[in-house]
C-alpha cells in the first residue's frame, strides 16, 4: 500500500524500488508471474455448463499460472518488444544469416483465411489452392537451382540438411554401397553440417581450408583418397558455396568431378544462396542436393529464431530418395503422395506437409521480384559486400584474397594488438545502435567478423556502418581502448554474465 503522507527519508529508498528502473523510453519489465494475480483472466469465455466429466481420470488441480488482464498483457509484450533490435529498425549485417527486409505483403497474404485456417488432413478436394501453391513453389525452386527434385517438408535449414544427407544415405543403401561411411566436411563448415552427417550415421573427415579459405584440389584429394585409393569409402561432401568465408569455391568444378568419379554426392549447404539467386544455378556447378533457407534468401521473417523452412532440391539421380510427401499433379488436380507410393523415399521427416505458412510467404516474395528482380538481388548483395570490403580493408585485416561474394570476412588481427577483441568490436557496434556482424565464425580464422549487408540496404546505410567501423578502428589505433570493455552502455542491459547462467542454470521462474 502506498502511504498518503509525504515521504520521509527512510521511505525514499523503498519507493524508488517500487518505481523500478524505468527511465524515458527504457522500460523495466518484470515477469508475468511477478505481476499481481488478477481475479479474472484476460479472456472472456462463455460459462461452463457443469457437464459430468467423461475423461476417466482425475481433474487437474492448481497449475500456478499467472493471471492478468488484457491491457496488462499487451503492455507487457509491447514493452518487451522495445528491448529488441530488428531488421525493421536498423542495419543487421549478421553474416551467414541473410537479414534482409521482410515484406509485409507476405504477412498479409499468409493470413488470408483460405490459407491460414485450413487443416493439413482435410480432404484434398477442399484444399486444391494450397497444394497448388506448394506445386508452384516447387517449380520456382527447381528453375532457380536447376535441380528438378523438390521436397518442401523440412522445417528449417538444419532440418533440410538432415533431409538432404538422409537422401544421400538412402541412395547409397539402395545401391548396396554400404562401404561408403565417410562424409567430407571442410573445417570452415557450419556446425550443423558435421552434426547432421553424424545423425545420419556417417563418420566425419575434415578438409583443411585454413591456407586459402577454400577447398583446394590438393587438400580435397588428400581427404578423398586418405583411406581408399579410389575414394570408395566416401559417401559425399558437404560444402557451402559460396563458403562461410564469403568466397566462391574456385576449384569446385574439378573437386566435384573427382567426387563424382568416386561415387560420392555433393551436398551444398544453401545458407549462402543469396549470392547466386537468379544469376547462377547450383545444378550447373555439380550440386546433387541442396537445401534452401526460405527464411534467408526468400525473405520469410526470422521471428527471433524461427520458424524457418528448409526445402531441399536434388538432381534427377537422387529424386527417388527424397523425403515424403511431395506434391504431384495429375491432369488439373493436385495431390500429395500416398503412403508407400514411393518406396525408395528416405521417409517422413516432419508431421504433415512442412511449414506451409513459409511456403506462401516465399512464393509471394518470388512473384514480387520475378526473374529480373531476383537477378538484381544477388548482384546488389554481392556489390554491397564488396563495397564494405573495399572501404574497410585498411582498417581491418581481411584474411583472404577477394573478390568476396555476398559477405565480407575480417579478423581482429589489427585490433587484438591493442587488446581489443572481436567481441569488443561487436559490443561497440551495439553502442552505436547497430547489430553486430557474425563473430567468431567461421572457425578457420582467429576472431572472425563476418559481415553480410544483403541487397536491401542502400549506400547511405552502408556508409554509416563503414564510418562507425572506421571510428572504432581509429579509437583502437589511438589507444583509446579502455571503454571498449564496458560497451554497451546504451543498451537495455549491460554485458551479461554468461558464466553464471551456465554454472547455475536457472531456466524457469519459480516461486520463492
Amino acid at each position, binding site marked *: 500500500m502506498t502511504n498518503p503522507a509525504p515521504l520521509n527519508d527512510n521511505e525514499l529508498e523503498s519507493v524508488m524500488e517500487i518505481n523500478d528502473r524505468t527511465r524515458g523510453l527504457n522500460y523495466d519489465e518484470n515477469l508475468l508471474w511477478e505481476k499481481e494475480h488478477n481475479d479474472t483472466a484476460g479472456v472472456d469465455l462463455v460459462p461452463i455448463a457443469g457437464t459430468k466429466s467423461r475423461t476417466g481420470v482425475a481433474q487437474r488441480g492448481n497449475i500456478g499460472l499467472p493471471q492478468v488482464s488484457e491491457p496488462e498483457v499487451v503492455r507487457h509484450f509491447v514493452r518487451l518488444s522495445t528491448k529488441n533490435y530488428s531488421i525493421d529498425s536498423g542495419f543487421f549485417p549478421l553474416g551467414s544469416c541473410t537479414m534482409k527486409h521482410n515484406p509485409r505483403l507476405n504477412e498479409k497474404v499468409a493470413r488470408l483465411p483460405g490459407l491460414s485456417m485450413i487443416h493439413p488432413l482435410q480432404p484434398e478436394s477442399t484444399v486444391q489452392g494450397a497444394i497448388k501453391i506448394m506445386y508452384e513453389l516447387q517449380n520456382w525452386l527447381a528453375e532457380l537451382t536447376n535441380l528438378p527434385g523438390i521436397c518442401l517438408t523440412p522445417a528449417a535449414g538444419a532440418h533440410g540438411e538432415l533431409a538432404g544427407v538422409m537422401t544421400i544415405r538412402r541412395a547409397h543403401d539402395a545401391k548396396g554401397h554400404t562401404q561408403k561411411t565417410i562424409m567430407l566436411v571442410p573445417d570452415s563448415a557450419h556446425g550443423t553440417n558435421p552434426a547432421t552427417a553424424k545423425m545420419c550415421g556417417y563418420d566425419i573427415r575434415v578438409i583443411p581450408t585454413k591456407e586459402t579459405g577454400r577447398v583446394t584440389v590438393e587438400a580435397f584429394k588428400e581427404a578423398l583418397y586418405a583411406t581408399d585409393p579410389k575414394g570408395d569409402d566416401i559417401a559425399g561432401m558437404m560444402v557451402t558455396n559460396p563458403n562461410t568465408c564469403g568466397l566462391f569455391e574456385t576449384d569446385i568444378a574439378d573437386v566435384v568431378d573427382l567426387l563424382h568419379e568416386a561415387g560420392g554426392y555433393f551436398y551444398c549447404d544453401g545458407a549462402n544462396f543469396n549470392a547466386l539467386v537468379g544469376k547462377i544455378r547450383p545444378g550447373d556447378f555439380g550440386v546433387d542436393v541442396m537445401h534452401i533457407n526460405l527464411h534467408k534468401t526468400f525473405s520469410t521473417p526470422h521471428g527471433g529464431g524461427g520458424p524457418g523452412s528448409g526445402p531441399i532440391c536434388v538432381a534427377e539421380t537422387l529424386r527417388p530418395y527424397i523425403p515424403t510427401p511431395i506434391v504431384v499433379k495429375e491432369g488439373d488436380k493436385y495431390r500429395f503422395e500416398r503412403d508407400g507410393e514411393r518406396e525408395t523415399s528416405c521417409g517422413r521427416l516432419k508431421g504433415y506437409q512442412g511449414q506451409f505458412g513459409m511456403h506462401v510467404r516465399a512464393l509471394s516474395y518470388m512473384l514480387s521480384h520475378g526473374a529480373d528482380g531476383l537477378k538484381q538481388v544477388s548482384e546488389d548483395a554481392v556489390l554491397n559486400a564488396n563495397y564494405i570490403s573495399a572501404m574497410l580493408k585498411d582498417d581491418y585485416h581481411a584474411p583472404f584474397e577477394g573478390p568476396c561474394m555476398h559477405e565480407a570476412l575480417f579478423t581482429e588481427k589489427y585490433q587484438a594488438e591493442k587488446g581489443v577483441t572481436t567481441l569488443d568490436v561487436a559490443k561497440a557496434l551495439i553502442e552505436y545502435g547497430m547489430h553486430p556482424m557474425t563473430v*567468431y565464425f567461421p572457425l578457420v580464422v582467429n576472431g572472425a567478423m563476418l559481415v553480410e549487408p544483403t541487397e536491401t540496404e542502400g549506400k547511405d546505410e552502408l556508409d554509416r556502418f563503414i564510418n562507425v567501423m572506421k571510428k572504432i578502428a581509429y579509437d583502437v589505433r589511438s589507444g583509446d581502448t579502455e571503454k571498449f570493455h564496458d560497451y554497451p552502455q546504451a543498451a537495455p542491459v549491460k554485458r551479461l554474465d*554468461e*558464466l553464471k547462467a*551456465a*554454472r547455475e542454470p536457472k531456466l524457469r521462474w519459480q516461486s520463492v
Partner: protein
Amino acid sequence: MSNVKYTNDHEWIKVEGDTAAVGITTYARHALGDLVFLELPETGRQIKKGDDFAVVESVKAASEIYTPVSGEIVEINEALQDDLEGLKEDIDTGWIVKIKMNNAEEAASLMDKQAYDAFVAGLE
C-alpha cells in the same frame, strides 16, 4: 626418478604400479578459462591411447581430454563435478580418472617435468 609424466596435450599422469591417475596441467587449466561443467566417463570403460574420455566445458567451448595410455577406467573423481576449481595440476586431488594400464610402456615414453616445461616454454 619421478613417476609423474606429461603429454603435449597438456595432461599429467601419475603412475603407481599398473594404475595411472590422469589430470590436466596448469597450462591447460589456464587456457580453458572459467569452467562450467566436467563430463566424466563411466568406470569399466576400455579406452585406447588417444581416445577422449572426458569433456570440460567453458561457456563457449567444450574441450575433450585424451588419454595418454590404454586400459580400463577403474575410478572417476566425481568430487570435481561439484568443485571445478579442484580440477588442477594437483597430483593428489586434481586427477580426473584412474586407468588400469594395459601397457606400462606407453606411460614410460611420455615427457618428464623438465621436458614438458621446455615444451610449454616453446609455445609462448
